[in-house]
């Protein structure tokens, strides 16, 4: 099937409005454009502000930007946080991974027609199915509630955290919290193991309601992560093909738009990913759980195709790995010590920092004047980076839907579920 006139899929569940996919006829074929607006340009909010306010302001983009901005301040003031501050930031980062992935999984579970089935009202099979779906959603939300509590303990608040400041964190933990964090970590691990199992065994499998996620594919692309303060680029087989410090970002990453892309996306410049990667989508790269995956196959993915199902499995693996690390990290001995911050003595004029956030690589760069007022800012983050892959996924979902003669509603559902995962 081809579309004769422009068709719009809008709004899309789980996407920031205004976000839509427009399918435009193109010489007997069609082109699908993922359209989102970048109305919140970080520069608009940050330029002119005192630099130390960046962790609070940038958290509007994601809670992990709070931590990335604190790291930027460490570099600007050339200070190293004490170990317990590093642990607290790291522990907050782990809870944010859980919060982000569980929120995505919850949205994936909500049935588009009836997200809140009143399962008490019906004993019919459909009612029973709804009850199972409801219980699954509750399990995800239970784990999310615990992760949010950990984030609030460690960051002061789960959504716009507060505690990461230049050179450390703003306060010691209260005594009551040590035991609570251990309990949260144990409970989260138990819950995410359950969640992973029902996704893998019942939902993503052949015949499962999310099996369609493996039916649309794009060519794999290189990936990037922040590893030990550097940006590490790997090819599709997992081989490291480049690495560079965050301050080299302007030389290595540009912002491009292609005929298929609509919004600009971050793109690796020549040489940043080796000579022979991503030939079909030059420069396009991917960040997030798929990029973090250890290639000794924590989960099976192919080197020749990339599907939303791979992204979902990587997210589930990331969830378990993070919960396991939480059980090691959320121990009293990691949060006690003599100091929580190193007080800066002098300020630089420019700094760059990279952080591996829940959704993937975040790179921040800023210049300041003599009074520490932000003069310029550069933000490269998953919203912008994964736009390239998201555009291709939107195209693939529409093409697959049309080839299978699927209804508008069905194509929309497939689009929504696959876009959620990148």
């Amino acid at each position: 099937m081809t579309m004769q006139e422009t068709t719009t899929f809008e709004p899309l569940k789980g996407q920031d409005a205004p976000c839509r996919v427009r399918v435009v006829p193109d010489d007997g074929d069609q082109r699908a454009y993922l359209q989102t607006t970048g109305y919140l340009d970080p520069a608009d909010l940050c330029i002119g502000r005192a630099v130390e306010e960046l962790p609070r302001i940038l958290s509007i983009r994601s809670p992990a930007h709070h931590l990335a901005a604190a790291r930027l301040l460490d570099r600007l003031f050339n200070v190293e946080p004490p170990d317990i501050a590093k642990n607290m930031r790291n522990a907050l980062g782990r809870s944010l991974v859980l919060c982000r992935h569980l929120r995505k999984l919850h949205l994936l579970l909500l049935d588009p027609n009836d997200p809140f089935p009143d399962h008490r009202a019906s004993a019919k099979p459909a009612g029973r199915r709804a009850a199972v779906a409801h219980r699954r959603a509750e399990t995800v939300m239970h784990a999310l509630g615990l992760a949010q509590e950990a984030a609030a303990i460690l960051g002061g608040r789960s959504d716009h955290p507060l505690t990461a400041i230049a050179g450390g964190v703003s306060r010691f933990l209260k005594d009551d919290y040590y035991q609570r964090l251990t309990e949260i970590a144990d409970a989260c691990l138990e819950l995410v193991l359950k969640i992973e199992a029902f996704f893998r065994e019942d939902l993503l499998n052949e015949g499962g309601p999310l099996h369609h996620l493996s039916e649309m594919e794009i060519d794999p692309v290189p990936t990037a992560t922040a590893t030990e303060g550097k940006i590490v680029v790997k090819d599709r087989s997992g081989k490291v093909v480049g690495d560079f410090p965050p301050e080299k970002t302007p030389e290595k990453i540009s912002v491009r738009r292609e005929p298929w892309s609509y919004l600009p996306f971050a793109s690796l410049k020549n040489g940043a990913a080796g000579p022979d990667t991503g030939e079909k989508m030059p420069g396009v790269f991917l960040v997030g759980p798929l990029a973090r995956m250890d290639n000794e196959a924590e989960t099976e993915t192919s080197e020749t195709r990339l599907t939303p199902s791979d992204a979902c499995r990587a997210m589930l693996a990331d969830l378990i790995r993070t919960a396991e690390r939480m059980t090691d990290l959320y121990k009293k001995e990691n949060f006690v010590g003599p100091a929580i911050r190193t007080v800066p003595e002098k300020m630089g004029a420019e700094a760059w920092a990279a952080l591996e956030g829940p959704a993937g690589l975040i790179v921040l760069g800023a210049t300041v004047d003599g009074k520490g007022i932000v003069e310029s800012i550069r933000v490269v983050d998953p919203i912008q980076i994964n736009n390239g892959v998201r555009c291709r996924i939107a195209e693939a979902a529409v093409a697959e839907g049309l080839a299978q003669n699927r209804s508008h509603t069905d194509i929309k559902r497939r689009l929504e579920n696959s876009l959620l995962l990148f």
Partner: protein
Amino acid sequence: MKPKIAIVSASGCRACETTMLDIHYGVSALNRWAEIQFWPFVLGSSMADLERIDHLDVCFFSGAIATGSDRAMAEMLRKKCDRLVAVGACAAYGGMPGLKNLKKPATAEAADRGDLPEELALPEQENRVRALDGVDGIDRVDAVVPGCPAPVNLVWAAVSALVCGGEADARITYAAARLPEEMVRPILSGLGPPPGAVFAGEKAVCATCSRKKEEKRFKAVKRPYQAYESTGRCLLEQGLICQGIATREGCGGLCTGVGVPCRGCYGKPPATFDPGAKMVSAISSTFETEKPAEIQKIADDFVDMTGCFYRYTLPAQCMLMKG
């Protein structure tokens, strides 16, 4: 009949909107009390769906008005909804997106995309970011839940009061403890909150901040990256610019409790006309000097007063930027 409700987000970060999902978990099925008719983020509901709806009882609206589609949705919801509730600092006061108003409106961005077919043009950006009641034709909101993000307990207090009627009184006890008496009584009697109710306290954050006030004065302005006591004393008295005194209470001093100065996300308390003016007056009565040179030094050390004092309220507070 269950009240029909809408949950929407305009331009913000979505944390306020997802609080509704957290509530749904906390109290089990929200649909015991309400029929959710319009929720683009979760149901994928479209503007066409909204056009087909004749009437809604309550709409929980978060996010600021920054694009043409935000505005269109807000206008339509005002017409269809009995009670329009601004959830979070963005909807109530313009929030952090409102900082964009300090910049000259940009048109270059749109021009840059001139090679795109018309149907793919960028959604129209408003020339100014506005709070929900700053949109022409929206002369009022019926209730406000402040905060960035609006906290779950206060959002739940608003949902209980506006949607659940008398059925959920017991559940708002915790939240009610921090709400003003004049608001709690009509809610508990089942009449619902008074028009324009703000689901927060009436005093300033200082009233519930746990920090010790010693009536001491400071000699120099400190920036939050400089050394200060991490526990105990009032931050303003240590020279840090903390806006608790010009901010509505309701969070219990969340930021100051973790050693970080308040930035005013609950908006101003009813007794304050302008939070910036209040802060200037509070600071000038808290620093210890009468020597012109030292006063000048303190004034010079303040940086970005507008972006600090109106961090969350610029569109609602600065009249010249309202239009």
